């Protein structure tokens, strides 16, 4: 069974079997990913792109094969469209500083949505402060879906960039990113998609979506921490100035000037997270081996089961009921604060997240300080959902 592939799932917490429903914060890693990391350290430990010696050659090959695996996973035209980054947050900051910043004049606008993670808000606020541009926000409705009725009027001739989340980490909403890209492109607005919560659960095809940039977070898609890739269209990556200066990103350095290397090296200054990149490649292969459709289908079943189970609890309210959504449930229970729920059910072995999930504006919309969030993955089970429900009932009893 696939669940067996994830060693960390098989343990007791507070004397109870672990029920891990915090996958949106970070996913579990399958043994093949852990092995890929260990294997590099134990057998191919060397720096990449540098040495004529054997280990260095092997490490370089593994690293570049990983890039190719990721390109296949998201259907990028070439591995050279992918830059290794620490995670989605670095991807957004990189694009904000190297692509967007220099295009902005005071009064220009950047469009994001009300569903964004802080990682897709704060980098734009920073670039707005730096340039005098303004942030505009696509609104959402009570279901947690974007309201696109007036979308065309939100895009003005001052709109220089749009960045929108593919799948909301707080509510699970799956946004119609292809449609958004088409509409923005019709007005010549380049678009970035924050794919942190998409690659672990959905088929992602960056060419079909048509976006200019797409950020992928490794640790959310069963890969190592500190790994991720930023996809960019070749013409953008070629034209952008580098982000970090350092080793590997240059082809010639004198004290007077430096000539930058080609993409993707231009954006990968210094020694990268080699083990992390190799492990992320293994995660991409793992997803393709299992089959992303298999994953989505299994998660759909789990999602329906969980929704029904939660709706059976008196006084429980689910925030975000989008028609298209991932197996993520933000909920509140009358009279019990989310943190208290989190602590109580942790005592029953159930790991959920409580708080604002780095999406404060969503909770400002719902006018609550936060929620409980149960975020599932394909390796979770119906039985685990039953344990969640049972433990929530215990919390209610305690506060009755």
């Amino acid at each position, binding site marked *: 069974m696939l669940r067996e592939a994830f060693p960390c799932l098989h343990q007791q917490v507070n004397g109870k079997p672990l029920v891990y429903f915090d996958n949106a914060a970070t996913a579990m890693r399958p043994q093949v990913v852990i092995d890929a990391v260990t294997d590099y350290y134990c057998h191919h430990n060397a720096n990449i792109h540098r040495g004529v010696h054997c280990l260095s050659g092997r490490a370089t090959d593994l690293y570049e094969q990983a890039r190719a695996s990721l390109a296949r996973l998201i259907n990028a035209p070439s591995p050279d469209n992918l830059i290794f980054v620490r995670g989605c947050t670095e991807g957004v900051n990189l694009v904000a500083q190297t692509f967007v910043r220099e295009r902005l004049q005071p009064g220009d606008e950047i469009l994001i949505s009300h569903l964004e993670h802080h990682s897709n808000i704060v980098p734009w606020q920073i670039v707005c402060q730096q340039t005098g541009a303004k942030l505009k926000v696509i609104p959402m409705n009570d279901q947690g879906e974007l309201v696109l009725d007036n979308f065309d009027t939100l895009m003005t001739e001052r709109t220089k960039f749009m960045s929108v989340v593919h799948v909301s980490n707080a509510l699970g909403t799956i946004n119609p990113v292809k449609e958004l890209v088409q509409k923005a492109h019709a007005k010549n607005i380049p678009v970035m998609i924050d794919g942190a919560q998409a690659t672990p659960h959905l088929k992602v095809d960056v060419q079909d979506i048509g976006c200019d940039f797409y950020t992928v977070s490794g640790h959310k898609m069963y890969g190592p921490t500190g790994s991720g890739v930023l996809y960019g269209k070749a013409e953008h990556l070629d034209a952008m100035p580098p982000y970090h200066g350092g080793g590997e990103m240059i082809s010639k350095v004198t004290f007077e000037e430096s000539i930058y290397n080609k993409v993707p090296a231009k954006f990968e200054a210094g020694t990268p997270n080699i083990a992390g990149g190799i492990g992320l490649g293994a995660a991409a292969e793992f997803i393709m081996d299992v089959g992303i459709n298999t994953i989505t289908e299994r998660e759909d079943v789990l999602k329906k089961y969980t929704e029904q189970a939660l709706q059976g609890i008196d006084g429980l309210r689910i925030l975000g009921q989008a028609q298209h959504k991932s197996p993520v449930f933000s909920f509140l229970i009358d009279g*019990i*604060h*989310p*943190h*208290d729920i989190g*602590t*109580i059910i942790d*005592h029953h072995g159930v790991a959920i997240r*409580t*708080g*604002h999930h780095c999406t*404060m504006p969503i*909770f400002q919309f719902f006018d*609550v*300080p*936060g929620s409980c969030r149960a975020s599932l993955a394909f390796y979770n089970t119906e039985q685990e959902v039953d344990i969640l429900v049972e433990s929530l009932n215990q919390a209610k009893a*305690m*506060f009755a």
Partner: protein
Amino acid sequence: MSDLNKLYKQQVLEHNKNPKNYGQPAHWTHHAEGLNAICGDQVHVYLTIQDNTIEAAHFAGDSCAISMASASMMTELITGQSTFDALHLFASFKQMMSPEGLPDAEHILGPVACLVSVKKFPSRIKSALLCWYALNAALNGQATATTE
């Protein structure tokens, strides 16, 4: 009694349901907001200080049972105390919640000492501390305090 039952003991649940000194008062002389960046907890503390004495203490905010109970008990404890003593109580409470602990806590902190059971839940210590940090900030003329 399990650790969990000690955490959510009767006093805590009672203060959570019927907090003392809850709500923004009509007048106050000192105010600060406590923010817990990570979990989003938020507590406002309002003090009316005259001649270095805390005449009244109130709190407001939407937070968890631990935080509510802590603030409710704290406002009860500090009302009528000198600002100097209140700062001393802050230090004592922090000390009690630290790994070293505070010997003689009940003597110094009275009923508030029952919150020592929160220490078994490291992720919740900040919930208990938040209102105290806000108190400290208010006494020092600062507008905000964070526990992280």
